[in-house]
């Protein structure tokens, strides 16, 4: 078997004396699509934020493409170049046009010249189907469009892995699908992704594995079919009954 792209080994994370992650073990291989769900406060965001070092884990080891995440700036930079992230609240830079949002990292981090960066940016704007919005500012776009821009911005760095932290929870219902479609396209093209979401339809159709977290632990890890039809853990059953009854 090839080496996993992401390896988390016995990872603990503390905020002060509060333990947000307890002995997390996770392996993700290239091309795998993982959906993470669980109740609020269960540590889903914290777990994926440890993968690109937005949070620093306290115990255990994390390897991304074989490189261990340590305090070394060099390792952190290298990992961040390979891991893209999409946030619940989009986090587009409000003072830059859509195009500039997309060109920034390719220029500053990948050291592309301006025309190359622009070419990359336009390529991914087309991929998320909004090339016509290139010269607008984020505040002039709908929520769904903003989130698609945010996905395109992450793609511009050609990451190996994409992390999504509840990418559709801040959206009006009628805009959720346009974002999910883009994510499904990416999944079908073989992007490795970890997606925190409560969109169970998406999990069923796209995920290779579903991970259920509660109280900082991975409680259950199974194929979507197994997960939804035959959950083993009582906490998973309770969670599913709550979320599917809506």
């Amino acid at each position, binding site marked *: 078997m090839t080496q996993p792209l992401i390896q988390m080994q016995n990872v603990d994370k503390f905020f002060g004396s509060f333990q947000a992650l307890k002995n997390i073990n996770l392996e993700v291989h290239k091309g795998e699509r993982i959906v993470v769900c669980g109740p609020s406060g269960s540590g889903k965001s914290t777990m994926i934020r440890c993968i690109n070092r*937005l949070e620093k884990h306290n115990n255990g080891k994390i390897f991304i493409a074989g490189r261990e995440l340590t305090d070394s700036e060099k390792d952190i930079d290298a990992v*961040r170049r390979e891991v*893209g992230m999409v946030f619940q609240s989009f*986090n587009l830079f409000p003072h830059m046009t859509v195009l500039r949002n997309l060109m920034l990292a390719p220029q500053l*981090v990948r050291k592309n010249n301006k025309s190359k960066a622009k070419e990359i940016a336009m390529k991914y704007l087309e991929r998320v189907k909004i090339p016509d919005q290139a010269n607008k500012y984020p505040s002039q776009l709908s929520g769904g469009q903003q989130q698609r821009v945010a996905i395109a911005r*992450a793609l511009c760095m050609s990451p190996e892995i994409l992390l999504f932290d509840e990418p559709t929870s801040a959206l009006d219902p009628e805009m959720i699908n346009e974002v999910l479609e883009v994510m499904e396209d990416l999944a079908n093209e073989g992007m490795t992704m970890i997606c925190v979401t409560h969109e169970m339809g998406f999990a069923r159709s796209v995920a290779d594995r579903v991970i259920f977290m509660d109280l900082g632990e991975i409680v259950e890890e199974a194929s979507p079919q197994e997960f939804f039809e035959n959950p083993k853990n009582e906490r998973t059953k309770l969670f599913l009954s709550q979320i599917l009854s809506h």
Partner: protein
Amino acid sequence: MSFDISLILDSLPKMLSGIGLTFQLLILSGVLGLFLAFVLLLMRLTEKWYFSLPAQVFIYVFRGTPILVQIFIIYYGLPQFEAIRESIFWPILREPFGCAIVALTLNTGAYVSEILRGAVLAVDRGLLEAGSALGLSRNQRFIYITSPLAIRLGIPPYSNDVISLLKSTALASTITIFDMMGIARTIVAETYAPYEIFISLAIIYMIFTFFIQKGFGYFENFMSRHVKK
């Protein structure tokens, strides 16, 4: 009480002849103060105590004491030290104008650095995380994300500080500077007509304040033209 209009008409041009000095005080100490504020800000933003602590002490001292006291200490106090009189700063500190500039600069620098710091801290953390996630370094995040957004956030409080600096320049008249206030005081001493003179002077300051406010208002609208209200 009678209000002597002809006296006002007479003394207005005299007071206005001090406008140049008032503006020199405002602009020189405004610009130098902004520069100082930026240095203090960078000192405070480093996580090294030997940079941030001196900046904090400086800010505390200058915000915690009346500006008039600061002017007097610099003008009357410093020349008593041999070392000051022999230092390269003496040509500046020998002149009342230099003393006023120094005092106003140090004072406004302390206030403005706190304004800048507030603005920097008010920048949405999520945007900086997005920058980190894209691989931008700390300096790149500061230059491309924090600074442009902090400038927008800092404009309203900064314009307040410029207005209060304008009014503080009037204190320079206490150390023999003939700005508009200095001239007004002389006229009052000669004519014994404090109401007419000081009320017209107050109106002049108010007119300037109005223009400063308007100017910053336009600047703010320009800078936040992309952000929906």
